[in-house]
C-alpha cells in the first residue's frame, strides 16, 4: 500500500502541484474558505435550532444551503488535491480518518436536519423546537468542532494531538459556561418561549 502511495506522491500531477507554490497555497486557502461557508452556514443554522436568536425565522435559512453545498464541494475537491500531494503523510495518520469520519457524520446530520426541519410541509420553527432537532443540531456542532480539531492537529505528534483535543474541550466548556452566565445577565441570550 505504501508503495502505491509513493507512486501517487511522485506522479507528474502530484509533483506539478507541489512544485507550484502558488497552486499549493491556493488549494490550502480555498480549503479554508470552503470550510468557512460549509461550517459557517450549517453551524449558524444549528445555533438557531438550539435556541440562539429565536426571532430569526428558520424556513428562509434553507436558501443559504446551496452555498453551503458549494463550500462542501470546494472542500472535497481541495481535500482530494491535498491528499494526492502527500498520500504517504495523510493515509498513515489516524487523525485523517477521524476527520473524514466526522465530516461524513456532519453531512448525514445536515441531511437529517434538512428533512426534519426544512422538509416540504414542515413548520420549521415548530420542528426546530423538537428534542430530535436539537439533538441533531448539537451533535452537528460537535462534529464540526471535531473536524476542525483533527484537521488542525494533523501536523503534530500524537501526544500533542491528544493534549490539544483535551485543551479545546476544557476551553469551550468553560467559555460556554461563562458565556451563558454573562449572556443571560446582559440579555444577549434569549430562550425560545
Amino acid at each position, binding site marked *: 500500500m505504501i508503495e502505491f502511495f509513493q507512486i501517487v506522491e511522485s506522479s507528474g500531477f502530484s509533483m506539478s502541484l507541489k512544485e507550484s507554490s502558488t497552486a499549493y497555497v491556493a488549494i490550502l486557502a480555498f480549503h479554508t474558505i470552503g470550510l468557512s461557508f460549509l461550517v459557517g452556514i450549517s453551524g449558524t443554522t444549528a445555533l438557531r435550532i438550539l435556541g440562539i436568536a429565536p426571532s430569526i425565522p428558520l424556513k428562509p435559512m434553507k436558501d443559504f444551503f446551496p452555498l453551503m453545498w458549494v463550500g462542501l464541494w470546494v472542500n472535497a475537491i481541495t481535500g482530494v488535491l491535498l491528499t494526492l500531494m502527500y498520500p504517504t503523510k495523510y493515509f498513515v495518520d489516524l487523525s485523517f480518518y477521524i476527520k473524514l469520519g466526522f465530516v461524513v457524520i456532519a453531512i448525514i446530520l445536515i441531511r437529517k436536519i434538512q428533512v426534519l426541519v426544512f422538509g416540504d410541509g414542515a413548520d420549521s420553527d415548530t420542528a426546530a423546537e423538537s428534542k430530535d432537532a436539537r439533538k441533531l443540531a448539537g451533535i452537528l456542532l460537535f462534529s464540526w468542532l471535531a473536524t476542525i480539531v483533527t484537521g488542525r492537529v494533523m501536523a503534530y505528534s500524537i501526544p500533542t494531538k491528544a493534549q490539544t483535543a483535551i*485543551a479545546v474541550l476544557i476551553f469551550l466548556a468553560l467559555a460556554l459556561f461563562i458565556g451563558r452566565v454573562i449572556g443571560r445577565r446582559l440579555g444577549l441570550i434569549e430562550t425560545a418561549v
Partner: protein
Amino acid sequence: MLGLPETFLQLAFVEYLIATFRWVWPLSEVLHFIGLTLLIGIVGIYDLRLLGVAPQMPVAPLRRLLPWAVLGFFLCVFTGLTFVTGLWANVAVHPVEALVWDYFLQIKLVFIGLAGINLLALYQSGMSEVADKLGPGDDAPPKAKYIAAASLFLWVGVIYWGRLIPWGL
C-alpha cells in the same frame, strides 16, 4: 528594522507558554478557525441576505446573531496576537520581521482594516437602519448591496491571505 528593537511585540510569557506546553499553539490555531467560522458564517449570511439571497428572511432578526460574530472576531484577534507575540517560540522568527517581510500578513491586516472601514460605512451611510427595515421579500438598495459585496470580498480575502502567512515567513 524600522528603528524598532528586534524583540518588539515579543511577549516572554506567551513564548514561555508556547515553548513549555506544546498544545498552546495548536489550541490557538483551532480557536482561530472557530472564530473565523463564526465570523464568516454570520457576517456572510447577513451580507448574502442584503445581496438578495434568501429574500424571505427579514434582516432585523439577523442582528441577534451579530454578537456571536463579534465573539468570533475577538477570538481571532486574541489568538492572532498569540501567534504574533509568541512567534519566536514556534518558528524562531521575530514578530517585527514577520510584519515587515511577510507581505501575506500585511495584506491580511490591510483587508481587516478595510473591512472595519466598510462596516463604518454601513453605519455612517444610514444603510444599517435601511437594512433593518427590510422585511420578507424586500430588496436592499444598491448602496447596501455594494457594502455587503465589499464585506464578503474583504472577509474571504482575510481568510485567503491569512492562510498564506506561513509561506511568507
